[in-house]
């Protein structure tokens, strides 16, 4: 998609080059967009990233397999549980570890709670980008707090959970965990209803978000867009449904899809996904069995990581993280350290088509398009 700068026959005009970022209130971190403007219309947009780069992948090559687990927390620091999940899944695939039943349920519960956290926060931040004065964000924070308290009680930390282990989870959940999840399940739909009354039908929000940043279906697939963004463009592709990883084939949830592929669809698909997540949680809480939470083989990885040496080979494990397809490609040479460890970060790849979505729209639109992609710079820059 190209946008032509309109030449005026009488006036000598020039495109205005603005650097949105790296210190900008709405780039969700240190992200920079080099923008060329015709008035307020975007003519060209070049994303610049890497300000938060710490060579995560090289770090992982220098420590034991387990040692990378706390570092995955810091990729997408809003949903550390799903990052752990993807890494554990990839290594389990590589080492051929079985995960006990109870641990599977705990993992699913954690992943879905994380999805709730992420999507609620995203909607709040998107509204902030739209110019709402922090009200939706703080409502989102209010509810997120309840879930983070739960994470703290179970894993010991609110955001940097470091809870998953190869072949299970670090420690069994506390006794009052299940009742508390039930309370969240009761509470959350009410909150979502209130949130939606505040936002979904607000004419200003609808006018701002509809027909903005349209991402056509074919381009979305071709550009490797994943997660709610892909589904908002009308592609019914959910890795939980396609790969049936962990125990997701036991949960009959639905996959919401959008039609226009604009910002409003991306917003609303996320709201609907949260409602589906609550259904998964309901069922998981009902069915969770008793038993061990880590396989005895996996214990080597947890108790003495230096003895954990997956066989030679490579594996690609991917999950439907809240932001999209989070994949870990791990190569083992049979030693206690990964030979190669690669993160397929959803927010990084979703940024590929940022320019295509923004051309021809206003500066204000570029901000909300970026907001609707849902990036976390910890994951983009790695």
């Amino acid at each position, binding site marked *: 998609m190209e946008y032509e700068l309109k030449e005026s026959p009488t006036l000598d005009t020039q495109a205005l080059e603005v650097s949105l970022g790296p210190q900008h209130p709405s780039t969700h971190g240190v992200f920079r967009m080099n923008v060329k403007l015709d008035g307020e219309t975007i003519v060209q947009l070049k994303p610049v990233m890497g300000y938060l780069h710490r060579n995560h992948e090289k770090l992982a090559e220098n*420590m*034991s397999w*387990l*040692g*990378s*687990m*706390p*570092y995955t*927390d*810091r990729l997408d620091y809003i949903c550390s549980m799903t990052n752990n999940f993807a890494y554990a899944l990839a290594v389990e695939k590589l080492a051929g570890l079985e995960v006990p039943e109870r641990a599977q349920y705990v993992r699913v519960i954690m992943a879905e709670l994380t999805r709730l956290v992420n999507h609620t926060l995203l909607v709040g931040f998107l509204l902030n980008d739209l110019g709402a004065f922090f*009200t939706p964000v703080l*409502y989102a924070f*209010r509810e997120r*707090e309840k879930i983070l*308290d739960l994470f*703290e*009680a*179970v*894993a*010991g*930390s609110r955001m*940097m959970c*470091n809870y998953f282990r190869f072949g299970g989870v*670090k*420690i069994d959940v*506390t006794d009052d965990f299940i009742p508390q999840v039930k309370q969240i399940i009761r509470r959350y739909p009410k909150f979502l209803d*209130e949130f939606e*009354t*505040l*936002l*979904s*039908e*607000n*004419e*200003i929000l*609808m006018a701002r978000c509809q027909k903005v940043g349209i991402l056509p279906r074919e381009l979305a697939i071709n550009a490797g867009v994943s997660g709610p963004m892909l589904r908002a463009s009308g592609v019914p592709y959910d890795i939980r449904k396609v790969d049936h990883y962990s125990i997701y084939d036991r949960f009959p949830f639905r996959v919401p899809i959008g039609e226009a592929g604009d910002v409003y669809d991306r917003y609303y698909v996320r709201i609907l996904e949260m409602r589906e997540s609550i259904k998964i949680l309901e069922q998981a809480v009902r069915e969770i069995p008793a038993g061990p939470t880590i396989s005895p083989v996996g214990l080597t990885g*947890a*108790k*003495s*990581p*230096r*003895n954990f*040496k997956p066989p030679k080979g490579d594996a690609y494990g991917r999950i439907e993280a809240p932001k999209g397809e989070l994949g870990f490609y791990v190569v083992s040479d049979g*030693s*206690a350290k990964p030979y190669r460890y690669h993160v397929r970060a959803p927010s990084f790849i979703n940024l590929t088509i940022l320019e295509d979505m923004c051309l021809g729209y206003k500066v204000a639109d570029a901000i909300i398009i970026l907001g609707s992609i849902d990036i976390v710079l910890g994951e983009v820059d790695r």
Partner: protein
Amino acid sequence: MYGFGVIKGMLVTLKNFVLSYFTKERLTTVQYPEERLPEKERFRNFPFLIYDDKPEDLRCVSCDICAKECPPKCITIVRDTDAQGKPLKRPKVFDIDFSICMNCGICEEVCPFDAIFMDHEFELGEYGRFEELNYHKEDLLKSAEYFAQIRPTDAALIEAKRRQKEAKGAHPTSPTPPIPPPSS
């Protein structure tokens, strides 16, 4: 009807405004220094070293496993020696740089001697970034009673395990917990 959604949104904020005066559910702010949230038992912050009866009796045998496993490598251990230069099973230096530590809890997990645990103490502000945050052995020492106080469930489990081990240890056949061979 156009404009209706806007008005509904305003009613939601009005509801929140009014209810924030009446329900604790909506007004979630905790006035921190005066009010505090209850501590979660599993909450982990920075590590500390545990001793049983008196501060000289460290459980740590300076096996260096935690220092090797620590992902950001914030632990430094130097083994103590006796007068003849024979290495002793206790650390001479045990430093944890809190400016590097990322509270992951792996040291606690891998320690075979139950000597290092994660603390609940979080008010650790300092005016400097370097030596002030490098905690030495003396700063890290805390008693087993303290541990039992902050984490009763874990302490009970570990106490039971240790007692079992001690009972076994009476037999000459069972060795001390094995130290995994360090791999390159």
